[in-house]
């Protein structure tokens, strides 16, 4: 199973903060997970549109979209951070 979390404006746009998906061999990278999430609904597709700048984390560490995903991983998508 893969856990996907969304934060801030992205969480509001998707309409949920966490989703669980069955892990499949066809979803091997963070980019593939993102594409899979986009395909969930029209709201997902708009929230995660390729025109938006977004950041990703794999198991609570910032990651590139090309990073490999394994069963049990937690992936997060969010807008650029604005703390401090």
């Amino acid at each position, binding site marked *: 199973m893969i856990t996907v*979390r969304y*934060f*801030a*404006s992205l969480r509001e746009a998707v309409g949920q903060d966490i989703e669980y998906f069955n892990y499949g061999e066809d979803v091997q990278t963070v980019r593939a997970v993102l594409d899979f999430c986009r395909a969930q609904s029209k709201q997902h597709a708009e929230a995660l549109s390729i025109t938006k700048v977004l950041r990703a*984390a794999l198991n*609570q*560490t*910032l990651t590139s979209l090309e990073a490999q995903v394994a069963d049990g991983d*937690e992936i*997060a998508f*969010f*807008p*650029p*951070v*604005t*703390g*401090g």
Partner: protein
Amino acid sequence: MPAQDFPRSPFIEIRVQAEAFKPGEELDRWCALSNGAGAIASFVGLVRDLNLGDQVSALHLEHYPGMTHKALNLIAEQASAKWSLTAVTVIHRFGDLIPTEPIVMVMTSSAHRGDAFSACEFVMDYLKTQAPFWKRENTSSGTHWVEARESDLQAAARWENQP
């Protein structure tokens, strides 16, 4: 003084909290703890009461609980690898804040001021672009998520070309 005279792993303290903190008390505590440090640099960030011309009445700070501590700790470790530090602390709030309240405090301790100053600035620059916090402001023109600034990315990027 050569770097090998310092402990390899400086003391790192990361606090992510909803509660308010008092920068003066934190600095006093840090001075008392600063075993062997001749210099402490500190930075305090306050909640703005004006942002891009709008009056800010309240700020909500969302974060990623499982990642925030890890990300701040990594930044402190990166600073420790670049400069000779005896200690690094980062205190960052989340939740609901009001304008002029302290939101973040960074303290870096070293034998001499140069390393403490540089490391303190580095930690803040990286925190602004790598730590998972998001600000939502209530202003006179409504509630909105704060947009990331290009200038913050540039500030973080300038450290990458340094040894």
